[in-house]
């Protein structure tokens, strides 16, 4: 009666998950699946709004209006989509390799601080030097941060989900310490670093929106990821490890190496996402600025079944939701936390749909 026991079924790992980015029919299929999941989530959200005595139609209309209603509204949606593009790609790659890397959130904080530090320390450098230097530092810091749990996972089989979640608390507290201790700016109400120099700030694309050049970097990163996953040997190795680590090992793939690279890759993206927020939006590091962007990335990746192309589309959608929700709250009194409920519903349905296809985990605790 193995069929009764999904989580213990050894045959599960041998099921091949089709790669939605590669074939046209399956792309249409996954698009309709994504729309269905989204529809169910919005329906669930409507139910929650209705039960709490508000009008769901008005709330969603306000949300749509605030996210697409004007040029600035659209720019703000793209702005909100920027970090989600990074974290969504990071999650999609990790999932594809069967890895649950939540450490991207920590990388986002540490990378964000690193970019701010470069920006307020090397104030005399010209933009052409300081901007690449900031991004590079943020990427390295973010990548190194995820390398620790990566080693633990790949070489010692320490559960990466638990370690990365716990290490996120460490990263968040550490950056909070930095702006409260060594880099304290006296006289500010909230804990934040000094402002970065003018030359380290990214170009604003459509003022008065804060949409900035980091959106273009995120697009580049997304295109690079799509190329990486579909056209390179490394992408193939990632898919092999995700489908069946045992078989991948027998075929001569260095599984340890692939897992480490995938997690570091996610960390680099997290760092860049943080840098984008610091250099393009806030112009300084603010303690606690992320509020779960890595989890939104996970939601996005799950919604589109880890297809990098799908992440590109779904990030824009979640940018709209995030950007519109604040206005929705002001206009209709429906709290913006509704977005989290939508996220949870999407993840929940993704969990049911995937069943035991992906993320078979060998746990021997």
């Amino acid at each position, binding site marked *: *009666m193995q069929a009764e026991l999904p989580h213990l079924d050894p045959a599960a790992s041998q099921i091949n998950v089709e790669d939605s980015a590669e074939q046209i029919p399956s792309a249409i299929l996954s698009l309709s699946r994504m729309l269905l999941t989204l529809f169910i989530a919005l329906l669930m959200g409507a139910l929650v709004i209705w039960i709490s005595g508000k009008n769901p139609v008005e709330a969603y209309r306000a949300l749509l209006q605030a996210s697409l209603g004007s040029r600035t509204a659209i720019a703000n949606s793209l702005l909100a989509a920027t970090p989600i593009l990074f974290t969504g790609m990071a999650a999609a790659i990790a999932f594809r390799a069967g890895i649950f890397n939540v450490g991207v959130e920590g990388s986002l904080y540490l990378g964000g601080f690193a970019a701010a530090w470069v920006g307020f320390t090397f104030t005399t450098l010209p933009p052409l030097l300081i901007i690449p230097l900031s991004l590079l530092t943020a990427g390295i810091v973010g990548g190194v941060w995820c390398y620790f749990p990566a080693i*633990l996972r790949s070489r010692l089989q320490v559960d990466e989900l638990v370690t990365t979640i716990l290490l996120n608390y460490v990263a968040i507290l550490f950056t909070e310490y930095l702006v409260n*201790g060594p880099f304290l700016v006296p006289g500010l109400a909230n804990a934040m670093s000094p402002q970065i120099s003018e030359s380290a700030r990214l170009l604003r694309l459509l003022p008065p929106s804060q949409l900035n050049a980091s959106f273009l970097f995120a697009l580049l990163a997304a295109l690079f990821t799509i190329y990486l996953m579909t056209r390179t040997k490394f992408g193939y190795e990632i898919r092999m490890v995700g489908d069946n680590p045992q078989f991948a090992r027998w075929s001569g793939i260095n599984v340890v190496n692939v897992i480490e690279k995938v997690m570091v890759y996610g960390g680099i993206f997290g760092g860049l996402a943080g840098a984008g927020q610091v250099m393009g939006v806030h112009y300084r590091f603010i303690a606690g600025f992320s509020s779960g962007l890595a989890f939104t990335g996970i939601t996005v990746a799950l919604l589109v079944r880890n297809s990098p192309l799908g992440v590109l589309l779904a990030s824009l959608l979640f940018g709209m939701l995030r950007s519109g929700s604040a206005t929705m709250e002001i206009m209709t009194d429906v709290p913006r936390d509704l977005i*989290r409920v939508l996220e949870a*519903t999407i*993840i929940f349905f993704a969990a049911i749909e995937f069943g035991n296809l992906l993320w078979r985990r060998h746990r021997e*605790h």
Partner: protein
Amino acid sequence: MNIDPLTNVLFAALRVMTPLLLAALAGLISQRVNLLNIALEGLMLFGAFFAVVFGAKFNSPWLGLFFSIVFTTLITFIYALSIIELRANLIVAGLAINILAVGLTSYLLVVMFNARGAYSPSDLVSLPHLNLPLLKDIAILGKVFSGHGVLVYVSWILAGLCSVFLYRTPQGIHLRAVGERPEAAETAGINVKGIQYLALLLGGVLCALAGAQLAIGDLTIFNDSMINGRGFIALAAVFFGAGKPGLTTLGCFLFGLFEILQFRLQTSANIPPQLPQMLPYLIVVLTLTAISFQKKFTKRMAG
């Protein structure tokens, strides 16, 4: 020599280990049916939320506790249903519960009390604290073991019962059989699904107690970040204890001790609070690393 500081630390450690222990018992029972319970964190948050909300509504911590158990178990039932009947992915479904907990409680907090992030009903009193009749007069033991909140003692009793349940009752033996040899258990006529439901739902009750202890055990307050990774620390304690109730309890005590020591460090030494706050998380990660090291080493020794 004055031993008061030591007894104070031990007393406080027993207090802060309680939510960890209750959640760890939930994780342990799931672990024994081979279901890794990622949702502990979210279920604890739900437990805390319902305890405060219903406690305030009926102005009784006991009714708060009761409804917290009812509603948290209800949510656990949906989680269990999705995993067992709909074959949802265990980890992803757990993540969904955790995110739902943060989202829904914050949402309801605004809608119901117009409060963002935190809510503290002014009239609600916490669950009673007990002075153990004979023990409280014994010099050191009294100071360490007497005067705790009622759920602290409940957690000790439940830890003992958990051990008895797993090793001395037919259901417990069935439960372990399902975890270790599912096919054999099925062949032997054990209701595998029923056992899986039992394990997860018991976990829901325990998480409700864990959340209630945090929310109405000493103070009466809810805030959306009050669980603070305790669900995952509890899971780490289960790994530490290798699924055994005694060792898992020890793990919770040690992690609780570190939580208290970091707190003492914050208040006594003149250093920024964030640095000591990082310590418990780092120690748990190091502990998990050490366990894996040891496992790898023994495996290699065994050939």
